[in-house]
């Protein structure tokens, strides 16, 4: 008999609880999220920072992010760190609705790539807050090359987080060095064991360079030629699929022989597979930069304080030592050459001027061209 009573009570209480519970949920949905952080003026207690995965220093043993802890120790501001950005498009898709209403997304800093249209779109639509340069004296440490990008010529809204290069990675056990797109797309030995990046600024950019065109100034002819070539490689089965970061596991595993890949990823993968190599194609590669921006409703003083913190070469060095992408902060190389010579002298992290000269930034106007966007989606198979 005891079982009966328990069950009945359960159901009774459950049924009673329903009305009480479903109402707030409904109201919450209609009400939308609450306002943003401390707003301009005061530095808040917490910095809400959304970033890409594996893009900040991480200590395997303590499971902490040392620079974030140092930031808290220095300023007293706690950091809520979210690694929830996996794709510019997906993340933008998630945040665009509240931002378009002028509502906060409960973040003070987010990181988007200049190689896709969303960064420029955020700034154009005014969904970002202006940086408080008074709180960022370290702004002077920004390297010259990043001083005036096309989407933010006065650097009013953004600061680079890390830069990276797009080139070709290969698994030495599966194939010899791959030095060109032609080889990647047409060598029969590689058939079906090659992937390309799904970024509109990455794969077409490399192909344009291979065709002899200039990706920083995309013309219809150049675009069509590049897309045709890529489509041929897809149709012939040469390209297995298009990927974001997910080329890393199959490449490591040996499912893939080669992939169009980002420089920093390979460096990080070397610990699990020393057979991985990366290089820019001889005809040139693409360089892109992930930028920190403050979305609408984010706390400008808190975010600016953090940005100043990471533009200290000592801190930048710690982050770069783990992430292995190209830092935008002057003085990082000098520190790393002494403290971590392997990284300090790595051409992946500190490319020589010669290498830098062969990299190109993708045309940001082309990123927003609706025709190109639709054509590219068709190539991607959707």
């Amino acid at each position, binding site marked *: 008999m005891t079982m009966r009573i328990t069950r009945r009570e359960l159901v009774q209480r459950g*049924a009673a609880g329903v009305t009480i519970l479903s109402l707030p949920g409904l109201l919450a949905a209609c009400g939308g999220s609450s306002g943003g952080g401390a707003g301009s003026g005061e530095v808040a207690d917490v910095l809400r920072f959304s970033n890409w995965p594996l893009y900040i220093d991480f200590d395997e043993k303590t499971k902490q992010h040392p620079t974030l802890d140092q930031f808290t120790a220095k300023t007293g501001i706690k950091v809520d760190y979210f690694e929830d950005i996996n794709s510019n498009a997906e993340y933008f898709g998630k945040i665009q609705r509240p931002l378009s209403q002028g509502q906060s997304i409960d973040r003070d800093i987010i990181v988007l790539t200049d190689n896709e249209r969303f960064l420029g779109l955020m700034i154009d639509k005014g969904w970002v807050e202006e940086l408080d340069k008074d709180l960022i004296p370290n702004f002077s440490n920004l390297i010259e090359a990043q001083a005036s990008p096309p989407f933010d010529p006065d650097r009013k809204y953004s600061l680079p987080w890390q830069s990276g290069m797009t080139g070709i990675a290969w698994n030495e056990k599966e194939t010899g060095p791959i030095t060109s797109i032609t080889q990647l797309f047409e060598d029969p030995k590689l058939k079906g064991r090659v992937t390309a990046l799904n970024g509109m600024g990455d794969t077409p950019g490399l192909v344009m360079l291979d065709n002899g065109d200039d990706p920083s100034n995309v013309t219809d002819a150049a675009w069509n030629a590049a897309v045709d070539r890529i489509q041929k490689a897809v149709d012939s089965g040469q390209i297995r699929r298009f990927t974001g970061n997910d080329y890393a596991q199959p490449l490591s595993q040996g499912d893939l022989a080669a992939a169009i890949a980002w420089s920093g990823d390979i460096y990080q993968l070397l610990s699990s597979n020393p057979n991985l190599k990366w290089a820019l194609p001889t005809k040139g590669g693409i360089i892109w930069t992930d930028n920190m921006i403050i979305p609408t409703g984010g706390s400008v003083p808190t975010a600016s304080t953090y940005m100043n913190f990471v533009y200290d070469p000592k801190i930048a060095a710690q982050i770069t030592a783990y992430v292995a992408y190209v830092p935008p902060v002057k003085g990082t190389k000098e520190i790393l050459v002494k403290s971590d010579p392997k990284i300090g002298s790595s051409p992946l992290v500190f490319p020589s001027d010669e290498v830098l000269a062969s990299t190109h930034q993708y045309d940001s106007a082309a990123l927003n061209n609706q025709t190109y966007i639709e054509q590219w989606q068709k190539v991607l198979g959707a």
Partner: protein
Amino acid sequence: MRWVRRHLLPAYAFLAFCYLLLPIGVVILFSFNAPSGRFNYVWEGFTFDNWIHWDAPSGIQSAVMKSLEIGVISTIAATALGTLLALAIVRHRFRGRGATNMLIFLPMSTPEIVLGASLLTLFLNRQIVTGFGTIFIAHVMFIVSYVVVTVKARLIDFDRHLEEAAMDLGANEWVTFRKVTLPLLAPAILSAALLGFALSIDDFVITYFVSGPTQTFPLFVWGAARVAVPPQVNVVASAIFMVAVLVMVGNVLWGLRARRARESMPAAVPLPEALPRPEAA
């Protein structure tokens, strides 16, 4: 030859179970793996580390908590709404019964992607911000139909004589409902709730469309799959799996005990068949 024939079916069943449970085995196994790099696909060594530090990857803890929260409240809401609907449909005649049946059946026959996409369209158009609340709304919406089907099945077989007997003994409708109907319906309601909870915890597609910046566990896995899935994902998945299996096995054992208890009880009251039954008016 006859030996083979006799054992063919069980052998097949065994193989089929192996097939069904192989991926689960792989998931559980690799939750104990100690990978040296980012990737968890090659067995490198046994460790309990992942289980102890299950919340090491950023965001996994809050994702799991969100999934559980949403699971609980949407299950409760959906179970209540669905039970009421089932009661209405089975026990009452009313106009629009057929249409109601259709309305309840339709969400189950609509692909999740359409459900998610249409909800997103609604939210976009009505300027509703997506997040926790919208996930709750979406989950209740698609769980309700399953609850109705489950409870309905039990209601249809329901022996109304017990309720009639109660009313003959002086109970009014509300008391009968509370003391006879609900307890007897409880197992079905509980099954429906369990089903609903499972659907909610596991839902990816619909949640993907309406979640906005909120992260549930399946969404976390999707994000992680883009880069490298940490073993802790396997840990959480295995844990949910084991809890679910335990609950279900427990439910079954409980049911067996209850049945044995009932069967061993002497019939203290003459069965309703023996009583003169009032013919339906």
